């Protein structure tokens, strides 16, 4: 529980980073200023004529707009709209694109994601027209973030990818790093920690290269966070120490708070409770001073957890409640969830069970909704990943090719001058690059082949499984078939022996003198012989139909529907199933009962297919009520399987209803909808393919019918087949 909780906490903070990151990005473009300062600067401009078309004025307006979009997004819209119009009137494209982007940002902050994307797209269209396209990568990155929030991971990853590519082309290292960071974030959420760490390291390298100390700290913080989640707290500690020291040097409250909070998490994981406490307290006081709402909630809950670990329940309770209140005011579901979980444990230990239950209920509520949305996001992002990695490889290929061209050109130009000195050096490098490219391509091809192979194997396995299921049900039948054929054969043997005895008797009688002959005895013997011949005929036919049925069952379905007597078919397979189980297991004991509608019309069915459905239902029913475990636990229940047939429905849509019931344990409603899914089985592994009911369902559907399940746990289970007449 602890580990999971920790993971959620970190995940929630990650979203916190992301927001900070996103905002910083634009702030860094222009020197940070206060809204008041900018407003008064704008006032000064407004005194001179023609200020509306002065680009310096419009740039300042955008800077103010950005600050307002962050601090007060709702009321910033009017101002932002006027800036857009002014830029448009002045035909100042760059300003207009910037203003539209900020408008999109403000809408994003208000939660209007759809409007936000619309504005970003308009900004993108304008920015693409401007030579150099310098604003394009940043806008693409913003669009990617909105898509990420919306759960459209495919789209988001594509946007980030485009942003990275465009940033590369325009040498915009900041945006490139931001987009890579966002890709890392998605890896993190998918639990691909190695990949996430690798991407964060890339961002670290970029920020170190462009000498952006704040972002370097952020990168260290992110890397340490991944390491902590990789269960590597010592490594994380080393990483964070670098980040924390750098933050102190930079004297930036935002980064000091962030790194001390992560450090506190690490020390908490290492059980260095005193160090963790000091750092959490530092984070809390800095957050309070600077109004960092989400970090404050996080650290309050972390501190409460520390006190809980120390057994100081009163303090733990106080901090947890404060943290919960803060989390609620910041609308942070994960933090709310974590606080409630902790509170329920605290209350429980205090003996306050009513409150503990209340908190636990809230914990469950938030936990469920978080898990649901996380699962949905995860599925979406997994789908996206394939698409993304394909594009990433394409890009690598393309850039290698490009390098190759550049290298070739340079090599061609200077080859004559330096060929003697340099020799084959360049060529070797090119060869290396080229070989690397080839290897990558081969790798992709191998991966593709593997995937295709896996798919083929999967298809083959499916066919095999269906066949295995058929054979398994036939195997279960064999013993029943043997018994069912043995009985009629015995009668054939016995009655034919009797017949020849009687013929002998009749001969003896007729060998007497005519006056001693008993005419009525002769008549009686003849009548008996006739009866016996009829019996022989009857049992011969009985064996014949069983053999035919068996052959039909094992043969591949011709798919031809023929009029079939459902009563006879069902009855036959009920007996086969019963005797099969009895023959296999000497201790097996169950009873069956039939209630067959004598006026049932024949049904047009593929008898072989429907017989598979029936054998499945009977075998399941007998297994349910007569398996050893159930009988041991319910010695008073007499295992009973009932088969009934009935004609139902209106005259224009008559249906044959076949029900198979057993008085076994019943099927809990929780798994009732799963029983028709392929590979679902409750039998011990190796005892069922889990395909029986799923195939049965498909067969009945293919007949235009329905297969339904009704169960009262502890009483009975009824499967009903409806077949059209």
């Amino acid at each position, binding site marked *: 529980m602890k580990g999971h909780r920790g993971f959620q906490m970190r995940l929630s903070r990650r979203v916190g980073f992301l927001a900070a990151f996103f905002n910083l990005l634009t702030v860094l473009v222009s020197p940070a200023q206060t809204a008041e300062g900018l407003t008064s600067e704008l006032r000064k401009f407004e005194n001179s004529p023609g200020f509306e078309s002065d680009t310096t004025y419009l740039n300042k307006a955008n800077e103010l707009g950005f600050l307002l979009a962050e601090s007060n997004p709702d009321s910033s819209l009017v101002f932002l709209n006027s800036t857009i119009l002014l830029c448009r009137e002045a035909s100042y494209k760059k300003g207009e694109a910037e203003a539209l982007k900020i408008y999109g940002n403000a809408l994003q902050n208000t939660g209007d994601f759809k409007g936000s994307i619309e504005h970003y797209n308009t900004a993108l269209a304008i920015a693409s027209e401007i030579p150099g396209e310098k604003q394009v990568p940043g806008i693409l990155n913003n669009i990617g973030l909105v898509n990420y929030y919306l759960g459209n991971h495919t789209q988001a990853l594509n946007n980030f990818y485009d942003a990275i590519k465009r940033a590369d082309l325009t040498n915009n290292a900041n945006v490139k790093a931001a987009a890579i960071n966002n890709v890392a974030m998605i890896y993190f959420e998918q639990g691909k920690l190695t990949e996430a760490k690798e991407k964060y390291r890339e961002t670290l390298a970029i920020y170190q290269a462009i000498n952006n100390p704040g972002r370097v700290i952020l990168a260290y913080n992110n890397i340490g966070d991944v390491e902590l989640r990789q269960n590597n707290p010592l490594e994380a500690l080393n990483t964070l120490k670098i980040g924390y020291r750098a933050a102190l040097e930079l004297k930036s409250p935002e980064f000091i708070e962030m790194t001390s909070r992560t450090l506190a998490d690490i020390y908490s994981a290492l059980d260095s409770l005193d160090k963790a406490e000091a750092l959490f307290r530092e984070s809390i006081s800095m957050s309070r001073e600077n109004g960092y709402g989400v970090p404050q909630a996080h650290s309050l809950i972390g501190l409460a957890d520390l006190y809980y670990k120390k057994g100081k329940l009163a303090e733990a309770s106080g901090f947890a409640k404060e943290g919960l209140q803060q989390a609620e005011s910041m609308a942070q579901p994960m933090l709310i969830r974590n606080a409630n979980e902790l509170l329920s444990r605290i209350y429980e230990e205090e003996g306050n069970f009513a409150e503990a239950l209340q908190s636990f209920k809230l914990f469950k509520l938030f936990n469920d909704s978080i898990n649901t949305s996380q699962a949905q996001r995860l599925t979406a992002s997994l789908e996206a990943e394939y698409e993304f990695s394909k594009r990433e490889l394409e890009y690598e290929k393309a850039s290698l090719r490009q390098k190759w061209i550049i290298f070739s050109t340079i090599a061609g130009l200077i080859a004559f001058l330096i060929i003697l000195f340099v020799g084959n050096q360049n060529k070797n490098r090119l060869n290396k690059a080229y070989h690397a490219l080839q290897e990558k391509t081969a790798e992709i091809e191998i991966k593709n082949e593997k995937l295709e192979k896996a798919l083929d194997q999967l298809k083959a396995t499916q066919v095999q499984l269906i066949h295995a299921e058929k054979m398994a049900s036939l195997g279960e039948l064999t013993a029943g078939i043997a*018994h069912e054929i*043995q*009985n009629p*054969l*015995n*009668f054939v*043997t*016995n*009655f034919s*022996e*009797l017949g020849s005895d*009687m013929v002998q008797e009749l001969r003896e009688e007729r060998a007497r003198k005519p006056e001693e002959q008993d005419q009525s005895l002769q008549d009686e013997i003849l009548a*008996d012989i006739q*009866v*016996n011949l009829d*019996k022989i005929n009857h*049992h011969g036919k009985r064996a014949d139909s069983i053999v035919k049925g068996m052959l039909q069952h094992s043969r591949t379905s011709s798919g031809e529907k023929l009029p079939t007597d459902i009563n006879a078919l069902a009855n036959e397979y009920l007996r086969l199933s*019963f*005797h099969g189980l*009895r*023959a296999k297991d*000497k201790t097996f*004991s*169950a*009873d*069956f009962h039939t209630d067959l509608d004598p006026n049932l019309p024949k049904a047009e069915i593929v008898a072989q297919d429907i017989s598979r459905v029936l054998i499945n239902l009977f075998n399941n029913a007998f297994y349910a009520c007569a398996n050893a475990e159930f009988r041991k636990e319910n010695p008073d229940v*007499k295992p009973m399987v009932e088969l009934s047939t009935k004609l139902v429905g209106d005259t224009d849509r008559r249906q044959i209803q076949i029900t198979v019931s057993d008085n076994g344990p019943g099927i809990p409603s929780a798994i009732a909808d799963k029983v028709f899914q392929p590979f679902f089985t409750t039998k011990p592994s190796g005892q069922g393919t889990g395909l029986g009911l799923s195939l049965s369902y498909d067969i009945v559907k293919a007949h235009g019918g329905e297969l339904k399940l009704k169960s009262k746990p502890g009483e009975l289970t009824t499967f009903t087949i409806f077949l059209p007449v």
Partner: protein
Amino acid sequence: MKILVVDDERDVEDLFRQKFRKEIRNEGLELVFAFSGKEALEILETTNPPQVASVFSDINMPGMSGLEMLGIIKSRFPQLQVNMISAYGDTDNYTRAMSSGAKGFFTKPVDFESLRREIGEILRS
């Protein structure tokens, strides 16, 4: 002399009546038939001790199996002789039947000559 035959196959009645026609006609053999273990126990319980001298029972029957019935008969009427008849001549069924107190064990298809000898002994006793 009453003998109870238990089998879920109804044609067993015709078969036995014809096979033992002479014994029925001339030697006072009376055959009673039951088509399940439950029915057999009901017949046996109408009087105590039962009017039946011996039981011949199939093993493989729906509901109560012949072996289950054997156990019940032996606990209620220890003196009553019970013979088992099974399509499965395997040692498992045989040992289970004999250890539960069966007098004899016949396999299907029944060898009526040995069955006649057995019934002859009962009639003479």
